[in-house]
């Protein structure tokens, strides 16, 4: 136990891997308990979470807004659909996800290069246009990409080793839904470990530096363009992986699945959870997966007609967005953390009062934090404010 704590304290990678193992254990426990429907819902939460995690890096850590991440997911989803076009396909599923990630990475690089020069609302406009434009590509190349109907995804059978492992561990058969959910969550854990490591490392510090103050970053020898493009690439790769999981979960890649609404959903997830925190992205994704059906059900139980109950979900969803921004702009995770930091500070202050050492009144800013709690909210000037004038 002490060794584990040692690892926790001294190695970033070690800490993330430990967290990943714990996360995996939780996932296994949960997926073994819930039924098929919840498993598929959790798979949906996983793909939203993966994409929101990528967007967290871009928007929360690097300060670039993207309204077009749904479009990047589409590239991942279509790659998956093209690779999994018949059930006898022999390509291992992990390679399929990897290939989807790479395709989105390539597209993301191109977009990132074009976007690196843009700021704030200009970037928002460009990515918005991207979100709306991409579905049209699937229509234009209808022969190849299936047009409006999209491409079906034929999921190959659950591999024998997975069945064996499941049987060994639990004595039950693994259902397809469970398999899909495992796939989604393992992808999520791998993605998050990679993202967290990047964000904690040198690259992440550069991203933050560029977000917080372009001029100082440049003076410190950081190439702004490069930092922006690399953040976009990483974020697009995550979107690609998410798109792949989406296609596998929904068994389809179709243009109407990648409308602007999806892009906005991702942005919402990121902000609801707390901008800049990977854990926030996950919580946001959970909220957006489970809240709408829950609200609709309540509406239906309260005797509303189906149509009105259906409108209730977007209504609540919109109100939650508004309220979070007005009342807790740091998001759920950010607000909780701030409250905790404040409490700690008060406790320390009380302790300091006793020992009469006023030097420690500030909440300790622990650099071991998962991410920098100094999200854009804390930093006075944001990139675009200064530069668009």
């Amino acid at each position: 136990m002490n060794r584990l704590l040692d690892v926790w304290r001294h190695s970033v990678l070690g800490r993330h891997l430990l967290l990943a193992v714990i996360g995996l254990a939780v996932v296994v426990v949960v997926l073994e308990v819930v039924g098929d429907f919840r498993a598929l819902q959790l798979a949906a939460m996983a793909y939203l979470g993966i994409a929101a995690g990528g967007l967290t890096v871009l928007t929360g850590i690097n300060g670039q807004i993207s309204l077009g991440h749904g479009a990047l997911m589409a590239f991942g989803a279509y790659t998956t659909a093209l690779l999994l076009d018949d059930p006898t396909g022999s390509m291992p599923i992990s390679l399929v996800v990897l290939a989807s990630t790479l395709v989105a990475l390539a597209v993301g690089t191109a977009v990132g290069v074009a976007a690196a020069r843009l700021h704030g609302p200009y970037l928002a406009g460009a990515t918005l246009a991207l979100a709306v434009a991409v579905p049209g590509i699937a229509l234009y190349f209808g022969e190849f990409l299936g047009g409006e109907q999209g491409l079906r995804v034929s999921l190959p059978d659950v591999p024998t080793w997975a069945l064996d492992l499941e049987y060994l561990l639990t004595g039950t058969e693994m259902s397809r839904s469970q398999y899909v959910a495992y796939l989604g969550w393992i992808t999520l854990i791998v993605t998050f470990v990679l993202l967290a490591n990047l964000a904690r490392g040198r690259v992440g510090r550069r991203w933050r530096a560029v977000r917080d103050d372009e001029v100082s970053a440049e003076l410190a020898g950081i190439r702004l363009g490069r930092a922006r493009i690399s953040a976009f690439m990483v974020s697009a790769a995550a979107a690609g992986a998410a798109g792949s999981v989406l296609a596998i979960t929904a068994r389809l890649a179709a243009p109407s699945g990648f409308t602007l609404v999806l892009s906005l959903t991702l942005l919402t997830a990121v902000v609801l959870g707390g901008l800049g925190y990977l854990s926030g992205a996950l919580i946001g994704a959970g909220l957006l997966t489970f809240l709408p059906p829950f609200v609709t059900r309540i509406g239906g139980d309260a005797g509303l007609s189906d149509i009105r109950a259906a409108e209730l979900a977007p209504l609540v969803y919109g109100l939650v967005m508004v309220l979070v921004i007005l009342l807790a702009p740091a998001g759920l995770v950010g607000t909780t953390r701030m409250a905790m930091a404040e409490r700690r500070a008060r406790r320390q202050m009380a302790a300091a009062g006793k020992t009469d050492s006023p030097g420690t009144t500030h909440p300790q800013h622990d650099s071991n934090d998962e991410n920098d709690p100094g999200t854009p909210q804390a930093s006075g000037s944001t990139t675009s404010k200064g530069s668009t004038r």
Partner: protein
Amino acid sequence: MKARLLAPVAGLLTATMILAGCGAGGDRESDSGGDGGGASDVGVTEDTVTVGGHFPLTGVAAPGYSEIPTGAQAYFDYVNAAGGINGRQIEYIVKDDGYNPTNTSQVTNELVLQDEIFAMVGGLGTPTHSAVVDFLNSEGVPDLFVSSGSLQWGDDVESKPYTFGWQPDYEIEGKIIGQYIAENMPKAKVGLFLQDDDFGEDGEKGVRQYLDKQIVGVERYTSGNTDVGPQVAGLQAKGADLVIAFNTPAYTALTQLTSLALGYKPTWFYSNVGSDPQLVGSLLNRFSEGAVEGDNSSLNGVLTTEYIPGVDATDDPWVQLWQEVWDQEGEGGELTNYRIYGMSQAYAFVQALAAAGEDLTRDGLVEAVESFEDVTGPQLAPFRYSADSHMGISGMRVVELQNGKAEELTPVLVSDIGDAPIEEDSSDQASDAPPEGGIPDGS
């Protein structure tokens, strides 16, 4: 310090647990329905049978389509009020998918795995429903009467044994329209105005079987793009004097308004989906100030097809039944053609339930629908269901709109996909009336 370290883990843990936990119960036994249906009777109890459907209740596709389930609901309520079928009340669960296939897949999971529906009834849309058709078939859930005229619901029984189409597919509609024009207007220069998906594609395939040589221009519009000016101007430039349009009702109004602005006056032949004279007429009547003439005359002279009687046919006994059902059980608002569509589908489902008998099983229901050949209902032409084909209604007639009413131009014509010939319907379904009480008996 320690609490600090564990915070993210705890957060993750609780979040997942809470979210996963809020209703984990009740899912376990659903696996029983997983393997091929068999003799399972998921969703059936002594006195209830639960069915579901997915429709766009929110978003851009909702106007119009969201009325379909209200019609079906009203008819099910009507049947329930009379005691249900075989002593079972029909519980109908409607889920919103916003016309987004990803959502369709989620809500279908919910319907099948959590709500444990016995059958899917009337799931709407081609891209949306194709996202779930494989799942429904692998779970052995009867997937009756898909609300879409795509061919794929019925032409491949082997791979989709549980799925059935309902409305006449777009291809036979195209064939019937094509033949009518080839025979009656052989000199017309035909333009096609098509929605850019399977609807337009299948329709075009049917039309081209009969008048490939007469077609002078094809324009496609993308659903959601409301400026059809460039497309209509394109048809005008090609000199088309007759336009066959496979589009939705809103686009019928838009093409009418656009051609008014362009001074373009071809004969319009709208497919059944887009013609809805009540809806389109009411939309166009507003623009009376020196624009489109008032009254019901805005669509005068427009050609279209019909396969079930619509609200304009107030003398039709079926429409009278629908009016009575809507007055009794409807949720307010007036009876519309979308609602009649939902009711007609619901009627066919009730027929299937009645025919499947007291021992209701999923496979029994499928067998009952496959032997539907003599079954009559509001549809003008018989169903094509058999063990080899799950295609829906076999035909329609060509009509001309005058003052908001449909005037017959041809008898009911029936056909099938591919090069099956077009023949006059001999079943005389078009002139039947609903049974006493408006509820089909078990056969």
